């Protein structure tokens, strides 16, 4: 029996503002579902997409785009193109589970871990999420500062502008409006595609790399750091918490799971296209043997300027600002959702400020704190962002095991518990992530053993 069916026996129904807002969104979904025309199916898709696209484009954030830029500049076009596609396939496997979990239980990820497995394991998950999210949030502001710096905006003004945008997005007090505004901003992530086209890429090399995974770079500690950073650029713990909570806040149900899958795959396809475009865009820096060791986000734009012109470089900088901005919003909100779920406080973007003081305060205070840290001069950006992505990879396996157990819990999931094929894929992702982490550990602790293994 589905445990949540017991909730249907509520004697006294208390209806909140949050419920009314969500009911209006669901009424539109129900109306679209009643019609059978092609246009109605398209409208239904339009109404139900959101969390999947946002989480995938949100994860194409400042550190991720910089990791892809460093990948292109250091290794050019080759092994990393198909490797990045593989990481997005992993992201689809993982995120599909969170969407299904949210639609089946109507509960957030943190809430489920706390209630199903107890506070001991719940707090471990929250600490992992909290530390990871805060470090990542700092790097998002670094990206915003660097991107706007290209246009001559001073750091303090860039940070204030970002905080003002975050505040404006939150003050809609409506999940639907917030989601559409953030999706519109996230669409700017695609500017890296025209930037890549401006570099006149060698399509033969690209298709050859995508089909043969060659040339393969020499495996050393720096290559492994990029491998881990690229994995961390695609699968991270905050994505699990965000998509599940957003699925719940949007009001999706088991009937919407098919559209949820389309949403997730569509988001992954768009994000993968942008990630590949970034590698292709910075590949000329590899071909011209320019060093990318100390490039900050805006410096990539400066370095590419002779090749792609002022317009291309400006688009690049705009893309970096967008990457930082959207992630700043989504990551702050994933922290606030988790906080609200654990502290049993109201947690929804449909809440008016008076009812959601704790929720909105967490979002904004975290952002302000990260913004202040970013104003400290002399932070080594490239190094910081690569390390943040590596930590995200290391924190992923424990988070995935909880997700795996919850998605297989038939008492919670009923008839949409994970099928065998999804379990095989999810297990493969966990083994792959642990293996990559162990290799990185060996390369740091015992570099000679690693060199011997890598054939160096």
């Amino acid at each position, binding site marked *: 029996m589905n*445990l*949540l*069916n*017991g*909730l*249907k026996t*509520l004697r006294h*129904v*208390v*209806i*909140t*503002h*949050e*419920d*009314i*807002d*969500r*009911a*209006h969104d*669901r*009424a539109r979904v*129900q109306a679209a579902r009643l019609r059978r025309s092609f246009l109605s199916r398209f409208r239904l898709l339009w109404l139900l997409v959101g969390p999947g696209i946002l989480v995938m484009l949100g994860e194409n954030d400042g550190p991720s785009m910089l990791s892809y830029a460093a990948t292109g500049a250091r290794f050019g076009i080759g092994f990393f193109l198909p490797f990045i596609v593989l990481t997005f396939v992993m992201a689809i496997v993982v995120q599909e589970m969170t969407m299904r979990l949210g639609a089946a*239980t*109507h*509960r957030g990820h943190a*809430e*489920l871990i706390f*209630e*199903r*497995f*107890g506070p001991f*394991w719940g707090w*471990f998950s929250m600490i*992992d999420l909290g530390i990871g999210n805060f470090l990542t949030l700092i790097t998002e502001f670094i990206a915003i500062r660097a991107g706007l710096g290209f246009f001559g905006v001073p750091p303090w003004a860039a940070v204030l502008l970002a905080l003002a945008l975050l505040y404006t997005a939150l003050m809609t007090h409506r999940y639907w409006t917030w989601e559409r505004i953030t999706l519109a901003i996230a669409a700017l992530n695609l500017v890296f595609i025209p930037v890549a086209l401006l570099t006149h890429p060698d399509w033969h090399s690209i298709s050859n790399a995508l089909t043969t995974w060659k040339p393969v770079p020499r495996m050393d500690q720096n290559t492994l750091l990029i491998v881990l950073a690229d994995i961390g650029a695609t699968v991270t713990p905050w994505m699990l918490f965000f998509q599940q909570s957003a699925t719940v806040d949007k*009001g999706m*149900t088991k009937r919407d799971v098919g559209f949820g899958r389309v949403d997730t795959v569509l988001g992954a396809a768009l994000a993968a296209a942008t990630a590949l475009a970034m590698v292709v865009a910075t590949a000329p820096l590899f071909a011209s043997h320019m060093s990318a060791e100390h490039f900050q986000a805006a410096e990539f734009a400066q370095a590419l300027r002779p090749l792609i012109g002022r317009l291309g470089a400006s688009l690049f900088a705009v893309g970096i600002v967008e990457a930082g901005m959207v992630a700043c919003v989504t990551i702050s909100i994933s922290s606030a959702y988790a906080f609200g779920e654990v502290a*049993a406080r*109201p947690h*929804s973007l449909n809440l008016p400020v008076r009812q959601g003081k704790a929720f909105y305060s967490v979002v904004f205070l975290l952002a302000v704190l990260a913004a202040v840290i970013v104003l400290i001069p002399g932070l*080594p950006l490239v*190094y910081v962002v690569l*390390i943040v992505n*590596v*930590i995200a990879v*290391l*924190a992923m*396996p*424990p988070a995935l*095991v909880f997700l795996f*157990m919850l998605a297989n*819990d038939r*008492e*919670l999931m009923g008839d949409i518990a994970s099928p065998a094929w999804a379990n095989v894929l999810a297990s493969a992702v966990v083994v792959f992530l*642990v293996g990559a*982490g162990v290799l*990185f*550990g060996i390369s*740091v*602790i015992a570099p000679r053993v690693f060199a011997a293994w890598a054939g160096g």
Partner: protein
Amino acid sequence: MTAKQKFGDSTGLSDEDLVLSTLEPDQLAESKKQRIPRRSLRRGELLVLWFLRVYLLFMVAVVVYQAWTGTH
């Protein structure tokens, strides 16, 4: 303008009718106060969770060491 005036007018339903006809019972904010029963972890699951916890702590120490050597 009350919530009822603002929303009820657009659908012709009262807020309560709209909510009850479109949301599943366990989607209501109030219903989330009901706790989900705890499930005890099996020995194999505990083993995996503890292994990954130790792995994470160890690997974070490795990253900190790598960062420290990298910046010095």
